[in-house]
């Protein structure tokens, strides 16, 4: 029952696109209307119900003042607690995006160019690993990094470190935790991007005498640049909103914005401030995305002008 059948399928698709006599002429745009209305209703009603609170005075316990005010936003941008948290979140997310790409890209490339079915098995294993709940992985990380654990006994024995290393309560630990959850997505996305680059381009460059690493850097990487940027942004966005690993590994010491939102709402019952932090988090994430897309477009145009 498999749908896609390689090249012959593409030919047939082209042929049948011109054949108007027998098509599934359903009103497909009407088919999606109920789903769209439902999704939009849930999205808008929940976001409006929550975020509008950011414009009212916070009276705690979920109560809001009645007058519109920008007080919460002013507080966000003048209080170092919130600003530091914002900067920390951006820094951590950017670090994870960079490291995930540096480690994940070669993996995706090797798997995409592997000539055996093993590549798919390995890919499926990566998917399986990244969909297992982060809570369980953190349990494992705690054991690995425990002071009497394998890793520390080894490091101490080798003399690599003087005291047991731990990742609990440190930003580095949060980066490791986040990478466990972004690596699968990144490899998968990059794999599908690299698969669209014809192998023949690499072979052509090699025939002309370019060494493999040069082919990789000058042909493969530039051709997949848009895919790399998209992947980096997706990983970045996932990290900006990531809660569980930051909360568990950060252990009340690494306050990223999502952790701060949960604390503000649940511990302090300050919904208005929680809404403000949420609004800023989403606005900043969106802004960084737009900025990267604009920069990439500019970069592309300049490169086009040179070529």
């Amino acid at each position, binding site marked *: *029952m498999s*749908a*896609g*059948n390689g090249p012959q*399928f593409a030919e*047939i698709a082209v042929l*049948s696109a011109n*054949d108007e006599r*027998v*098509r*599934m002429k*359903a009103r*497909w*745009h*009407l*088919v*999606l*209307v109920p*789903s*769209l209305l439902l*999704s*939009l209703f849930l*999205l808008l009603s*929940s976001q409006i119900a*929550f975020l509008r609170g950011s414009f009212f005075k916070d009276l705690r316990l979920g109560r809001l003042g009645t007058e519109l005010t920008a007080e919460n936003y002013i507080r966000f941008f003048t209080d170092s607690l919130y600003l530091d948290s914002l900067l920390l979140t951006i820094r951590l997310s950017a670090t994870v995006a960079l490291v995930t790409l540096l480690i994940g890209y070669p993996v995706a490339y*090797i798997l995409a160019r592997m000539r055996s*079915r093993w590549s*798919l098995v390995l890919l499926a*294993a*990566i998917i399986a*690993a990244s*969909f*297992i*709940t*982060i*809570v*369980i992985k953190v*349990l494992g990380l705690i*054991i*690995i990094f*425990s002071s*009497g*654990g*394998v890793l520390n006994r080894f490091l101490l024995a080798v003399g690599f470190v003087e005291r047991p290393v731990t990742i609990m309560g440190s930003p580095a630990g949060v980066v490791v935790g986040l990478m*466990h959850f972004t690596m699968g*997505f990144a490899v*998968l*996305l990059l794999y599908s991007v690299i698969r669209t680059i014809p192998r023949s381009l690499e072979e052509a460059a090699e025939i002309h005498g370019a060494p493999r690493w040069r082919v990789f850097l000058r042909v493969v990487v530039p051709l997949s640049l848009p895919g790399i940027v998209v992947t980096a942004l997706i990983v970045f966005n996932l990290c900006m909103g990531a*809660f*569980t690993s930051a*909360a*568990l590994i950060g252990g009340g010491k690494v306050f990223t914005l*999502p952790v701060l*939102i*949960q604390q503000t709402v*649940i511990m302090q019952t300050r*919904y208005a401030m929680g809404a403000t932090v*949420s609004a800023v988090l*989403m606005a900043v994430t*969106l802004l960084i995305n737009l900025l990267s897309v604009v920069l990439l477009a500019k970069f592309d145009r300049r490169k086009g002008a040179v070529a």
Partner: protein
Amino acid sequence: MNAGGALASLRRVASAAWIVGVFVFLFAPLVVVVGASFDGGERTFLNFPPRELSWRWYGRISPDLFHSLGLSVLLGLATACIACLVGVPAALGLVRAQFRGKALVAAAFRAPLQVPAVVIGVSFLKLFYLVGDVTGIYLVGTLPGLIVAHSFLATPYVIGSVSAVLQRFNSRLEEAALSLGASRWRTFTRVTLPVIMPGVYAGAMYAFLVSFGDVPVALFLGAGSMQPFAAKIFHLMEFDFDPTLLAISTFIIVGSMAAIWLLQRAVGLEELARSSGGN
């Protein structure tokens, strides 16, 4: 060409080492959880590799944990069903219809992926309070409330995987059915639906796993006995380290792997790789 051959084998070794390294990184925590769950020592911290093998912790898993595990499975199944009911028509419309503003509609369907899960959790909490004030039906701390929020969270995954299959759909199949006199509805149920089923299975699976793994939404919307498994473990980990958590986590790891393996048997590796996170 001797140097070239040496270089090629060096490259092969380096590639293999890189892959092995990443797999060790990804799987070490899981292997450690499974291994340590069999450790027999009477300590607050367990050891990996285990010093003496024992099933002890498996016998001590509290009924409470099994209860929340059952709740999570039920919640995940319901979420998968609803996400498919909403997501499959959405994918059909998005891939097949041509209309203005399609990019905008697609973005609207993807929106739940852009909103941080914590924010989804709080805003549904707020929404449910409002709905409760108006209708008298309070959804906070109830299974239906969790199902609504998780379906919202998981629907984009179904849309993504079904769209991936639809884009490669061979429309000749439908044309053949139509030209042989089948009605449009019959063509849809007998031709279109069976062909896109792999995408639906994959999407349902991802929806289930997203629901099962969610902590932040459940932290806000689950309460008391309505605490799904991942959120329950999250709370327990905040207080203390309990070895029985490793034992029950082993079930989850084995279960998740088995589920992905079954899915792979049903839809094929290619489909599995293509349709995940493919939006």
